[in-house]
């Protein structure tokens, strides 16, 4: 593990009933970057998130976060170390207001008890939710819910944010807003690992791109390199063979 990387994954595999969802994957995520994980459906992206957040333990391999081996840690332990996750299907607490949702992120994250109010306000501002603070989550649109999901994750003051398809189902305006928000989060000092299908958004926002196919890492590099990589094109479009 190099000094600049915040997350290091070494030889991680996980099978479900004999099917290798993630197979011998190794990579490093540089601190302060936006790193996108792309690949066709079923490539193992969500399983990978579940492994890092402690929902599943890997069968083999090690996961190192900020120099500490977190393999086999529980979700609560991982969250307390500073890893937050924004779900693809936004899971805000529907009966609570926007402020209350974000406040829970702050209360149980790494914020001191005195700073909860300030951190909550800051996260809502960053995600463009300040005007909606007293709305109940069940009143929000899909795009607003997605931003709420990100704001709540952010209020925990994570050093690593795992964002699961934050742009899925958003219209172009909302997608552009989300890209801006992700950039702001990185500029505020966090590292982001992004799973995303919206390729223009991935190409625009990523510092590095990792490509998974059938559980294996088939390519990694800068966005423009990935776009030209024949293996990636084959994985996405198929080959003539």
């Amino acid at each position, binding site marked *: 593990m190099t000094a600049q990387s915040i997350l290091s994954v070494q030889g991680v595999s996980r099978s479900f009933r004999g099917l290798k969802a993630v197979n011998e994957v190794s990579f490093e995520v540089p601190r302060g970057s936006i790193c996108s994980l792309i690949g066709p459906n079923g490539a193992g992206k969500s399983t990978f998130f579940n492994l890092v*957040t402690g929902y599943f333990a890997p069968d083999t391999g090690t996961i190192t976060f900020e120099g500490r081996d977190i393999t086999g840690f529980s*979700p*609560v332990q991982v*969250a*307390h170390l500073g890893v*937050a*996750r924004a*779900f693809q299907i936004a*899971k805000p*607490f*529907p*009966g*609570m207001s926007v402020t*209350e949702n974000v*406040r*829970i*992120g702050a*209360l*149980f*994250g790494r914020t001191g*008890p*005195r700073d*909860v109010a300030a951190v909550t306000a800051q996260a809502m501002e960053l995600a463009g939710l300040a005007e909606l603070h*007293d709305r*109940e989550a069940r*009143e929000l649109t899909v795009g607003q819910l997605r931003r709420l999901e990100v704001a*709540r994750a952010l209020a*925990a003051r994570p050093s690593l944010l795992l964002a699961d398809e934050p742009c899925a189902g958003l219209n172009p305006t909302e997608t552009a807003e989300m890209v801006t928000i992700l950039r702001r989060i990185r500029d505020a000092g966090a590292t982001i690992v992004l799973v995303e299908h919206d390729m223009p958004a991935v190409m625009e926002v990523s510092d590095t791109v990792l490509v998974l196919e059938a559980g294996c890492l088939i390519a990694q590099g800068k966005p423009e390199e990935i776009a030209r990589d024949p293996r990636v094109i084959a994985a996405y479009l198929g080959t003539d063979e």
Partner: protein
Amino acid sequence: MKLFVSGRQAWVSIGVTLAGTLLFALLPLLLSPYGVRVGQLFVLAAGLAVAWTVLGGFSGYWSFGNAAFVGTGAFTAALLQLALPGWPAGSAFMVALVAAMLLNGLLALAIAWPILRLRGIYFAIAMLGVSQVCFELVSNIDSLRGALGVNLMDIVPRGVRPERFYYWALLLATLVIVLVAIAVRHSKLGYGLLAIREDEDTARMLGVPTTRYKMIAFVISAMLTAMMGVIYAHNLGYITANSVYRGDFNLNVIVYSLLGGMGTIIGPIIGAGIMTYVTQVLLGDLLDTHMFITGLLIAVLVLAAPNGLYGIYDNYRLRMRRRKQETQR
């Protein structure tokens, strides 16, 4: 360390509670002895229902067996007083009260480990089982005297009418319960419990220590319920297992929240008020049909207002605000 997360709301609630309690404390001076007895039933119901809400309303873990703590609290106090003959009534009462609360806290802690792993309806059923087991144990073990019954010490001071004294004692206990519930609701613990109710897996992922929080809420709820049980037992004067492990306690505390507003603190109080008024005053003379009418009323209210009366008010508030926002645009 700040006491409350949402401090302003907490202090407003505390203010309203204190003012409301003061009003209710003056009522016995105006009411007939019969009216005061109805008041006792209301205050008892409200206290038990708010104690239930600390776990059931906030975290969504509905206990169908809170009578276990009413009964076990009552019998702990009664049996302990038998063991302390010759003590002055006041100090025997206090010792018994503290002991009953501690014992029920420990009981909750012991059953929390296996039972609070069960989610939703399974937890509810398991608690129903717990209350039945407690009832059977106290009924069938001779030394616990559940079948024979136990007398409790007379703790009413000289010169105070017993019905007034117990009204005030129950009111004081309910005040304590409501204040504890407000403190829980607006603390970090309360927000964690609400997150568990909304989505336990997401709460866990956000770092809420779900198991520990559920246990703490369960223990608090059990101790507060036991406190009510001890005072209720003294009010009865003589208790058997049947008179304190009452199945209707199990159910009523939930009905009050359903009527008034699940998950709120004011909801169960409103619900307890309505149900006590309807069953004791409005339908008090219709002995043959009042249970039928009560059941019908509950069914209609739950169908018409699934979030309780507070839910109706809340929806109205949301609609008004939306209309205001639209006119501003």
